[in-house]
């Protein structure tokens, strides 16, 4: 219900004699009714960006517009938090511990001086939508984590905000209910039609919810785009790492036939799919990345036909160690005559020291562009 435009936004924090750049030169447009994700690790500046949008912090430089109206500009708040009509779900939910869940949800409505019956209707409607009717008259601490989170949603939504801000809303939830929470978040947004921004370090939140994502790293917005594009075609190693696990190898890049090949050591050679515009990419020394689930390994004596279609053999490696994580074995590998380690996910562990054949999914290796690491223009 509101479109947001951010122009040349920077934020500096000054503490004693230390100046920290929390955000530098951010430009962003978030369309009306869009679900936008801000992805970044802790300390990247992502929460600061959200707090500036909310109006809880003032940008040092730059302009923020809600629709066409300027709400913050160059160190000044033009429209106060109270008047921005935003709802926010805090990481720790920030429920008022001394009030019942009902009163928590009713708080923004009481501030607006709605009639008691209107308040009751609104709270009950939201409670039904979020399935928290049975805990309405309990205090937040007497409710489960999932319930508290839904109360926080209901409070944020009770005043019909045009923008909902979600600050790591799932990080305090058990893994089992995270998906449930993501699902009702999506449903609420579709049903109520508010613009939403979610800030998270967890790519799962972004991929399950947002239609568009901005990846922020060390105060810089490195890439903005559809989640799938950002995942498949990250501009920098940092973006690739923020969106999922990544193997990175130094490699020699050369032109061969009508394409490019990356070689690491004697044994590994990976053809690269660079698309049309290859002028940006380096030749000679370069950095390639590939997701661990895009490579598979097979012991020398094993039959490689178990590996699915789309994979082709690209070289040979030596197992450093096998460990277990989340349903599969993580096999760490090195190359015989080259530095650097990488890993693959396997159904069975492979003893250390054993040689394996490496397969990679066609077209999945990423060559990072020359200027990809560089900081965008000041």
């Amino acid at each position: 219900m509101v479109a947001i435009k951010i122009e040349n936004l920077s934020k500096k924090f000054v503490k004693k004699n230390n100046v920290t750049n929390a955000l530098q030169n951010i430009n962003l447009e978030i369309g009306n009714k869009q679900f936008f994700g801000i992805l970044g690790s802790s300390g990247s500046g992502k929460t600061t960006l959200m707090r500036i949008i909310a109006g809880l912090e003032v940008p040092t430089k730059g302009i923020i517009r809600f629709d066409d109206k300027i709400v913050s500009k160059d160190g000044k708040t033009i429209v106060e938090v109270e008047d921005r009509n935003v709802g926010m779900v805090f990481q720790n939910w920030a429920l008022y511990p001394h009030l019942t869940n009902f009163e928590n949800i009713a708080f923004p409505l009481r501030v607006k001086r709605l009639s008691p019956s209107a308040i009751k209707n609104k709270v009950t409607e939201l409670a039904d939508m979020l399935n928290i009717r049975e805990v309405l008259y309990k205090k937040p601490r007497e409710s489960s984590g999932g319930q508290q989170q839904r109360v926080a949603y209901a409070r944020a939504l009770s005043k019909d905000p045009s923008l909902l801000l979600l600050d790591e809303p799932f990080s305090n939830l058990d893994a089992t209910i995270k998906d449930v929470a993501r699902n009702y978040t999506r449903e609420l947004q579709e049903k109520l039609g508010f613009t939403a921004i979610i800030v998270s370090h967890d790519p799962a939140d972004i991929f399950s919810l947002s239609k568009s994502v901005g990846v922020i790293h060390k105060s810089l917005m490195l890439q903005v785009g559809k989640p799938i594009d950002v995942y498949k075609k990250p501009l920098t190693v940092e973006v690739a790492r923020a969106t999922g696990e990544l193997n990175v190898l130094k490699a020699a890049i050369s032109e061969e036939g009508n394409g490019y090949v990356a070689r690491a050591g004697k044994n590994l050679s990976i053809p690269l799919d660079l698309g049309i515009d290859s002028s940006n990419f380096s030749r000679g020394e370069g950095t390639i990345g590939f997701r661990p689930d895009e490579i598979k390994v097979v012991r020398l004596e094993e039959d490689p036909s178990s590996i699915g279609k789309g994979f082709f053999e690209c070289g040979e490696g030596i197992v450093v160690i096998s460990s277990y994580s989340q349903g599969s074995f993580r096999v760490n590998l090195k190359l015989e005559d080259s530095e650097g380690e990488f890993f693959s996910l396997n159904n069975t562990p492979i003893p250390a020291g054993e040689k394996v054949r490496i397969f990679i999914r066609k077209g999945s290796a990423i060559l990072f562009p020359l200027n990809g690491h560089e900081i965008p223009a000041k």
Partner: protein
Amino acid sequence: MPNHYLRITRRIAHHIVLIVLAIIWLFPVYVLVINSLKSTASVLTTPILFPAASSLTAIITVSRAISGTLLNSLIIAISVAAVSAIIGSMAAYYFYRATSKINDVIFTIIAIATFIPYEVTAVPLIKLLINIHIFDSLPGLIFSFLIFFLPTGALLMSIFLAVLPRSAIESARIDGANNWTIFSKVVFPLTYPGLVSTFIFVFIESWNNFFIPLMTTNTPNISTVSLVLQSYTGGYGVLYNDSFAAAAVASVVPLVIFVLLGRYFVRGLMAMGNGAKG
């Protein structure tokens, strides 16, 4: 096994030392109690360290004599404690919200105001009270107490408020609440224990204060109970059971509060030095 005996001996010694120290620390109260309960006859026959047959005569006589000042003390201590806690927590709310450097300066001033030897302000204080015609009156006393205890209240509440999660106030702002709503509906209820501590601390301190009423009053019926004790000090013609009875009557209120709500008093004390951990 000798180690075993060593440990038991140590434990016994530990307890004995504590008990001896506790007895020494309780000794003045023992003296206070036994002597305030002595009759005039036994005053003349026993030294003050030994008990005698008890009688409530001294307590009753003294209570009658100082009942007016007891009431004054109660009115002053309650109103000063309440105003200091409430106004102090409002100021603390400002400190909590403000981000400018002035904040540090004002806070330093408040800390100095809390700890200044207030005796030094006696002369200007009296001149001011006389000028605004409240010298030697209950309002004048309350005003004088507030000058010294409001900074204490603000200091204590600032420290209690510092542990308040910022997100509680931020979410109230996002919910559209103004300062007054945030203060009354969120900050005030959430800092309730700190408020009680501040109230108790200021209550006990102002009940016990001697110097302020000494300076700002000169008629006995405006006096407070801790000041009136002065007339019961030892000297020719004063029987010590009256002295002790007066001290006992004056000490009952703060001591009962200390026994019942001591933890709040301790939190107040701790906050004065230790920050919010108390």
